[in-house]
């Protein structure tokens, strides 16, 4: 197949001129030299060549034969008998959706058991992540644990050390809430410069689900926890890594922290902690301990491996910030995004996700010229606290190069920073908590690329 072939009513019209890789290199070199107007001039020159021959492409033309064969020739599914009920006891996505997979980033980790896989944000709608596409982060491999043998223990500064079965936890009054979970290292590879091609790899360590479970405070009160002096709670997993993390008591007494067993109407998936995990809204994913077996109430933080060796943010002066748990205001355009091609000029819906660990998203603005001018996007409902929010903006692409960005603000007033603003404080070696504004370059030839602007 070549770029001009006709398929499914789509015409890919070849423009006469566009930005070649070498011209992009030139832009890069010129950009480094600091010529402020260079990119616009370069883009304008390229656009001038294309302007004359490139009329608005008809993306769905009438074929020469007088009609679309997909309409004129009735297909088998219109003229035959379909399949019966319960062929699949647990339904699967269409076979045509096979490209949507969570994927590893090549070379990021040496093992698959202490590793991550990224959710395909470029192809998802709304705010809920399908459970089978939820990003994964395992520290010592995942397990499918028999829930009838799983136990949950509470000890430490409590009147009574207690043990619960899953049956007992599921008998208690439950809540169901939508929350995002984001790895503290999401977008880590782009701290210094562009390193990966698509939004799946730049931002795919985030997912959003409806979680069902029991507020941890209910269980702590049952055990008679010392809520005054017990300022910290250790959460511990039941897998080989027995992951531990320190949770602030103030977040627990607010009722937000949930001991969850449900996810999007079914039980948690094994990769996400089946049968029990902690849900800590607004806090990075490493605190959402999977296969949760125990919490301990204490009066000091615990200095666990993932808060004293990893998940610390290195600052320019060589100091590590410890206990950096919060996921601050952030957003990203999911389409158009890196690795995609716009086949024609004309109307497009710019869409993306915004979120804040400090509450609701208040507004999102979108720029198509690299941050010079902005338009306010529509926030779709529902807009929930510490959950993903979906935004949309109408856009007519004129075929010229564009740099698309989104900028979110949360209800505390905090506005998502630019890379320059973030690096001015945190440098480039922090690894964790990169919430900078993302840029996608739409080239004249329609191909979209991950870029950073200065």
């Amino acid at each position, binding site marked *: 197949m070549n770029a001009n072939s006709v398929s499914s009513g789509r015409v890919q019209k070849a423009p006469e001129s566009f930005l070649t890789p070498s011209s992009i290199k030139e832009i890069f070199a010129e950009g480094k030299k600091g010529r402020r107007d260079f990119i616009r001039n370069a883009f304008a020159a390229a656009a001038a060549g294309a302007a004359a021959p490139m009329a608005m492409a008809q993306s769905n033309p009438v074929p020469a034969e007088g009609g679309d064969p997909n309409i004129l020739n009735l297909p088998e599914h219109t003229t035959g008998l379909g399949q019966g009920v319960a062929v699949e006891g647990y339904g699967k996505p269409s076979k045509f959706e096979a490209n949507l997979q969570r994927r590893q980033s090549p070379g990021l980790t040496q093992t698959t058991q202490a590793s991550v896989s990224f959710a395909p944000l470029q192809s998802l709608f709304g705010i809920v992540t399908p459970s089978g596409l939820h990003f994964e982060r395992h520290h010592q491999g995942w397990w499918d644990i028999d829930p009838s043998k799983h136990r949950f223990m509470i000890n430490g500064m409590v009147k009574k050390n207690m043990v619960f079965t899953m049956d007992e936890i599921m008998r208690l009054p439950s809540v169901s809430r939508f929350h995002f979970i984001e790895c503290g290292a999401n977008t880590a590879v782009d701290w210094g410069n562009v390193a990966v091609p698509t939004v799946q790899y730049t931002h795919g360590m985030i997912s959003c689900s409806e979680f069902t479970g029991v507020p941890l405070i209910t269980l702590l009160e049952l055990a008679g926890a010392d809520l005054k002096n017990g300022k910290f709670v250790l959460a511990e997993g039941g897998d080989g890594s027995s992951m531990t993390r320190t949770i602030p008591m103030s977040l627990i007494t607010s009722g937000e922290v949930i001991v969850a067993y449900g996810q999007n109407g079914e039980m948690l998936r094994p990769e996400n902690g089946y049968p029990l995990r902690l849900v800590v809204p607004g806090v990075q994913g490493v605190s959402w301990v999977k296969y949760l077996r125990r919490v301990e109430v204490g009066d000091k933080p615990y200095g666990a491996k993932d808060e004293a060796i990893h998940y610390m943010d290195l600052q320019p002066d060589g100091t590590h*910030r410890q206990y950096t748990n919060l996921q601050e205001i952030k957003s990203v355009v999911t389409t158009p995004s890196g690795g995609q091609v716009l086949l024609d000029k004309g109307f497009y819906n710019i869409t993306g996700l915004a979120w804040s660990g400090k509450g609701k998203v208040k507004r999102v603005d979108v720029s198509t010229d690299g941050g010079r001018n902005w338009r306010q996007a529509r926030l779709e409902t529902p807009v929930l606290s510490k959950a993903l929010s979906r935004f949309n903006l109408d856009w007519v692409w004129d075929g010229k190069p564009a740099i698309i960005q989104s900028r979110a603000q949360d209800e505390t007033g905090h506005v998502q920073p630019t890379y320059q603003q973030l690096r001015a404080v945190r440098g480039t070696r922090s690894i964790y908590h990169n919430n900078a504004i993302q840029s996608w370059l739409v080239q004249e030839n329609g191909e979209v690329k991950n870029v950073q602007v200065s």
Partner: protein
Amino acid sequence: MSRFRDAVLTVVLLAAAGGVAAQSSLFPGIGRTATPSEVAKWDIDVRPDFKGLPAGSGSVAKGQDVWEAKCAQCHGVFGESNEVFSPLIGGTTAEDIKKGRVANLQRSDYPGRTTLMKVATVSTLWDYINRAMPWTNPKTLTTEEVYAVTAFMLNLANIVPDNYVLSDKNIAEVQARMPNRNGMTTAHAMWPGNELGGVKKPDTANKICMKDCTPEAKVASFLPDFARNAHGNLQEQNRIVGPQLGVDTTQPEPKVGRPLAAAATSAPVVAAKPENTEAKAAMALLNKHSCSACHGVDKRIVGPGFNEIAKKQSGKMDYLVSKIKAGGVGVYGQIPMPAQSLPDADTKKIAEWISKGASK
């Protein structure tokens, strides 16, 4: 009638009295008291102030023995290996031990950050080794072995001398020599509570500006051409219909015209492969016996990938069975593979799968 009412009242009053007496009657019948032995088995965490540290000791010499038997395969003989995990040892100096700050962390040109460069609390090492190591058999070390391995690592980093015996009695002295003990701060706005002090104001204060906000944007960083297909073909990572389609990154960006993108076809871009049941069974065994911790199917981890072995030892099933059982060194590299004790039937199935080409 009135007798019935009295009876109901009595029940209500009794229930109320019970509620005052026992807190748990809020949810009667839910949960029970944990026994001391249950708590002891699970409550294994050790805090930076050493709360939770069991009494005991272990020597550097003993630690070296344990290390070479159970740790060196992944971490290297001197904790320096970068093959499987980030290096543990290196990058710290005598001056760091004196000051409690690792100077190399200030250098942006210093390659890598080892565990001993970063960690401020010796309790963290003890706790983590005890709960999660060795990688494929966590929680199997004795208390003495955990002390000993910790001591050996501290010795590799020149924090304790060769003849040191680390114990619950002297671990606080070691804490006072940790190279990065003064390298942490909680003065930031990213702890969601007031328990650690911290600061209220976030690091950045971007403003909502709508028009002529910045000079013309310049592209300062982008992915080089040679990395175009480094994450696999992006055409196969996008839906086959939609406002934008994935670009075919197996092809270089064309000089003229649009890059190739998947137009809708009658079949999915990724055709389903027929299921390879033999490979699936072999893979399950590789996971079950933790072979996959050191060998990838088509890539080297600590040891060679199975495809690499299959190429060299095609058809030699008996040889492969004997090598799995006895272990070895020198055929594929200098990191030894220890002898494995899995059931004969499983060993045979794995060997057969490799000898036939280690297909996926």
